[in-house]
């Protein structure tokens, strides 16, 4: 029963993330890719994503605090983050990336800063939720293994 409860919890969590727009359908596909041959796929991808995203956010922060912002560099980093987030299905993070790219194309520092903040915010939101999700997964896996 514990497993069933945990699975319901997991489903609800994912559903809430969908509802809030934190995740999109791509995450479903990601989950579909996980099977017995590849049991830790989602977790692996999520941790990859988090490492990558944190690195990029650090870089972005550095570039945005520069006196003369190198927009081209900024753009390429944002592009990477956007790619990662769209791969994992982090919808709102992706939107924030798009905003930042737009702002950087317009060379609008204020909007850049705003978009960057929203990127950071969205990232923390998605990370915390995904971490909860991973914890749940582990619980489930453990319980399944015990049985």
């Amino acid at each position, binding site marked *: 029963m514990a497993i069933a409860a945990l699975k319901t919890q997991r489903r609800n969590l994912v559903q809430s993330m969908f509802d809030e727009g934190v995740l999109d359908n791509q995450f479903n596909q990601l989950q579909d890719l996980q099977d017995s041959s590849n049991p830790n796929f989602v977790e*692996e991808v999520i941790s*990859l*994503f988090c490492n*990558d995203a944190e690195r990029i956010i650090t870089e972005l922060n550095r570039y945005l605090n520069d006196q003369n912002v190198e927009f081209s560099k900024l753009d390429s980093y944002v592009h990477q983050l956007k*790619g990662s987030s769209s*791969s*994992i299905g982090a919808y709102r993070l992706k939107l924030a990336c798009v905003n930042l790219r737009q702002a950087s194309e317009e060379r609008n520092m204020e909007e850049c800063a705003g978009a960057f903040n929203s990127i950071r915010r969205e990232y923390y939101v998605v990370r915390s939720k995904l971490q909860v999700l991973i914890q749940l997964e582990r619980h489930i896996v453990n319980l399944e293994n015990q049985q």
Partner: protein
Amino acid sequence: MGPKLKQSYHHSVTVKVNEQMGTKRGYTFIQANRAWLPKFLLLWVMVMAFLSTWIYKKMDADNKVRRKEVLTSMCDQRARMLQDQFSVSVNHVHALAILVSTFHYYKDPSAIDQETFAEYTARTAFERPLLSGVAYAERVKHSEREKFERQHGWTIKTMKREPSPIRDEYAPVIFSQETVSYIESLDMMSGEEDRENILRARATGKAVLTSPFRLLGSHHLGVVLTFPVYKSKLPPKPTVEDRIEATAGYLGGAFDVESLVENLLGQLAGNQAILVNVYDITNSSDHLIMYGHQNQDGDLALLHESKLDFGDPFRKHQMICRYHQKAPTSWTALTTAFLFFVICLLVGYILYGAAIHIVKVEDDFHEMQELMVRAEAADVAKSQFLATVSHEIRTPMNGILGMLALLLDTDLSSTQRDYAQTAQVCGKALITLINEVLDRAKIEAGKLELETVPFDLRSILDDVLSLFSEKSRNKGLELAVFVSDKVPEMVMGDPGRFRQIITNLVGNSVKFTERGHILVKVHVAENPKPKDDAKAEIRLNGVSDAGALISGGCQYNTLSGYEAADERNSWDSFRHLVTTEALQNDASEKMTAADEASRSVTLMVSVEDTGIGIPLIAQDRVFTPFMQADSSTSRNYGGTGIGLSITKCLVELMGGHISFISRPQVGSTFSFTTVFGRCKKASRSDTKKSNAEDLPSGFRGLKAIVVDGKPVRAAVTRYHLKRLGMLVEVANNVKIAASAYGKNGSSCGSKIQPDIVLVEKDSWLSVEDGCLSLRMLDRKQNGRMFTLPKMILLATNITNAELEKAKAAGFADTTIMKPLRASMVAACLQQVLETGKSLPGKGMLNGPSVLGSLLCGKRILVVDDNMVNRRVAAGALKKFGAAVECAESGKAALKLLQLPHGFDACFMDIQMPEMDGFEATRRIRMLESQANEQMNGDTDKGSGRKDKWHLPILAMTADVIHATYDECLKCGMDGYVSKPFEEENLYQAVAKFFKTKPISDS
């Protein structure tokens, strides 16, 4: 390409707006300085006022100078004359002095007495007009006084007529002119002036003058001239003492200067104008006036002084002249200046007015422009609204139609069914109309987006023809399509819209044509062949031409024999087209190579009918929406008149233009050009399979004879057969065909024996007997050795009786009903030839379930710089059983892909740092082509192995737009998948080459 088109449309709109803004901003100089205009005017007026003043001043100054010159010359003239006259008088007095000294003193006794002197002087008075009179006074010393008084009998008196007191010397007047006889016996030395004069005169020996004073008697101002008379001759260079010693007396005369000058001036012109004063200026501080009034007014501003020399060096005189009146105002100068000012003022005002007008006109212009932009925007908005509304109507309409269809499936009574069917027909008509309106509105609102996909133009034309085959057959119309060989098999464009255009035009033609034919013809618009060649070819083909002309001679050389409106479409030009193509086919390799170079091809499509034509008056509004030839047209034929305007819009969207030639009661020919992109060779093989209708290849190499008296129709038939890969010959009538066939038969297959003979119904009917004999001949000659050629009858419409007759004659194995379509012809032939082996079917593997089987065991390289993406892509591909390797950059990928490698496919991210996907692909392709060349060199003589290195490379891209797709193709990629992977999309992309591969391998 759709979004791109749309983009460009919007772009063009913005450009337009920008231009308008640009012209708005591009103010003229006047417009830019409009606020300054009044100031400019003021400045102008001021400058002009200044100029006028200057002109006035200058003219005035000129006047003054002239006036002064006049005054100077007048004054000098007067002075000179006065001086002359004076000196004449002085000379005369001098002469008188000599007379006195000669006759009074040298003669003894004296020859002169008072009487003589008086008479002489009186008679010579005219010589001295200036002198009122002359008198001679003798020098008498005091010692001689008594003797003198005694001698003359009177005592010497002073001027006051008193006996003179005792002095050293006396100068009593002894002779006097009668006019001054009152001074006789007066002592001239008693007057101060006279005394000084006398002393000075005898000292110098010259005439001397007194200062002016009132003359006795006349009370005029005058001067007294005194001349010394010497007793004895003077020594040369006499001293003053000598002179005084020798002095005997003094001759004097009074000059009445006033009357003298008066007279003088009276003689001269301009007397009234000027005022003359004469002064004695011996004492420079106190000028003594000799003539004129001291306080006369006059023009004090201007005066002229002239020196006078009256011969007395001691005394100085001058004449001062001035104008009586002040200088008159110079009216000429004033008027000139004033007129100048007025003219300039007017000019300025005119310029100002013009500028104001220009500003106003420009303002109006800009306003109008703005209004125009707004009007256009409103128009677009209207169209958008229409589009939206039409769309909104369409949705429920579809519901209604669907429900009606369902309703019709239910159990209905016949009346109910009738009602429902009527409703459905009406609904369909309505939705067609709405679709048309929607199209039109979409086009106007700029929302219509053209696709750019590869499609087979010929199959689309066939489809359209099949739509109308029923109608045309019912009407007995010949409906045919002909596509020139030069038109590429696959073109890039919007097949749906192209179909719509053709459908519209053909539909119109079918609607308005009751007899004759409708011919759709497509050829490449630019004919690269020079005209000379074409002419030469006509001559070459002259023999067969003659035959053609004879057989179809009585009629027009068109498809059906009816006259067509556009002569260019008649057989003359058509044959030209066909023959040139025939020749060009030989050199087609070269041609296609050249054609490939250009990225687009312009096609000329014409739809010719022999219908009722368009009335001349209506011809210029054919393309106007909702306009039909006349109101009766819609009554007779129905329709909204929107079709052609949509067609025109579509054609223009496709980069072409549409025109037509129409003759009432003869027919119309609509021609339009469109620009299509050429298909890349690489993509052609892929796209063809999915897009084009597959024509069976089972007829390749078959030989057919087409028997048709009408060359155009024969050409059409040949075109369709050629598409099936058949070799076609055309015979004008059955006899020719028979003879050709017979020859072939007898020569035992030196030429390929015809497998099929297609006979046009008209030709068959006209020579029924002949064909019978043909048949018999065939039987006899070839029965044993060869399979009989299949006989096929081509007919537009055929009655059952005719059909029976044909069958009975054994002529036709089957009948193909026109309009011809390649696929239909193929089906018929298949039936006839019983070559109905299973054709390579289109049994598509459906659904993503097969994706696993497609990808299973394949080695796939994923190139992406983004770790997460890489992992996800790899995961997805692995799920379908592929063996996945990853590379994190273009360079790494290149390393892995050094030939030979074992990868079956590569998924390449486009946007990567250092080396992007395009570049990486380009390099991979380069490596491959090098390897292939090398391999070709090695194995050329050998097995001729076709298996070249070509790794399928698929782009992974997040923004799936056509521009990117084009770019992908350009750099040698085989396709693209959207990122992140979607199963279906992935399947479609992968299936393209993983499916074809095993086939080519097998």
